């Protein structure tokens, strides 16, 4: 069964763990979503930068609204699940939440810089650094 990967602007590379999670038979797409890009208010230089990057990736670029486009693509290609890189961006999270109501979605976390509890109680960087330093100063296994 073919898996569908939605690559968004926070994860523009092909060795993101989302590819491993989705398996070998994948369709990977990026949406040049006018509503989203307008909302993010990116300048032209940024759009060129993103587009240049997409041209080097094995990804289909579609000029469409993200949610509707993904549903249509999943139907047309008989994809049962959409794999999406995790993101802190609330706008992307809203899109992911909308999709989750409509079809199975797997959100795949990025390789961490340091493995610490997610809900870190760190009101200042100093508090974080005290907990993270030892791990941060050594190479990870990845």
């Amino acid at each position, binding site marked *: 069964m073919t898996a569908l990967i939605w690559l968004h602007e926070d*994860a523009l590379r092909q060795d993101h763990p989302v590819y491993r999670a989705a398996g070998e038979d994948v369709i990977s797409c990026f949406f040049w979503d006018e509503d989203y890009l307008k909302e993010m*208010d990116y300048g032209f230089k940024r759009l*060129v930068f993103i587009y240049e990057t997409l041209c080097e990736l094995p990804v289909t670029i579609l000029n469409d609204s993200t949610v509707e486009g993904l549903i249509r693509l999943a139907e047309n290609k008989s994809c049962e699940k959409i794999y999406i890189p995790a993101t802190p961006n609330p706008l992307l999270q809203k899109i992911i939440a909308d999709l989750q109501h409509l079809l199975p979605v797997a959100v795949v976390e990025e390789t961490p810089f340091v493995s610490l509890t997610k809900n870190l109680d760190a009101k200042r960087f100093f508090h974080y*650094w005290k907990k993270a330093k030892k791990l941060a100063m050594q190479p990870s296994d990845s």
Partner: protein
Amino acid sequence: MRCSRVIELEKVFNDRKQLVKYVNEISPWLQGSNASSIMGGISQVERQLQDIDPIKYCRTRNFLNGKVTKLSPYIRHGMLTLDRLRNEALTLCKDPQQIEKFIQELAWRDYWQRIYQQHPNYVWDDIESYKTGFRADEYEDGLPEDIATANTGVACIDQFIKILLQTGYMHNHTRMYVAAYVVHWRRIKWQAGAKWFLHHLIDGDPASNNFSWQWVASTFSNKPYIFNLDNVRKYAHAEINTNSNDNVVLDASYEILTLSLFPNKGMKQ
């Protein structure tokens, strides 16, 4: 909801000029202008990783011509992870302590991302009160035109803004100078400056950018960040105009600037 026909977009171009023209065509909501000299693409990441010098970075990072990596646009868009960059940097030193500052800067980004994930509203809300002696409502909401167009009349600030507008990139130290000028010299809400930076910076990230503005403003730090002309002279290169007559409002001691910028500081609100 848009009902336009779905189109698979082009990916192969003869040259960069043709690609830029195409991006202009598929982004009709923007008045297309020039592309940055900073190029996108995974191949750029690999190229620039060959050039990093984390030990030199630690010695020179505050200087405007210091050995910074300029990898932030690639990190911002997930093309390069903090994990990989840290691992690459560690192969270039004998002792990790030699590059602690380098790794700490990566950690700052990780810290901001964690705060963003945990408290998305912090990105646009004041996390704490200003520690400047002023209430938030005493700051202006919008960014004045003279700042947006690099016509403040403060020579070095105008040069820094021009670099932002022309390249979509700024050295971190100049971001701090401009942010401090906007918030403390002009008494404009940090949100206005943060929004402006996010529009122009190719590496603009809601967490790193906005929390740094809050750090400068003092709504996410213990005191406001300010600088003076002597500080710019110390870190700038010869192309930056640091003449006293062209930068009058910056040319004073920290004591005098603190008194003039924050006259109410220390007084009960």
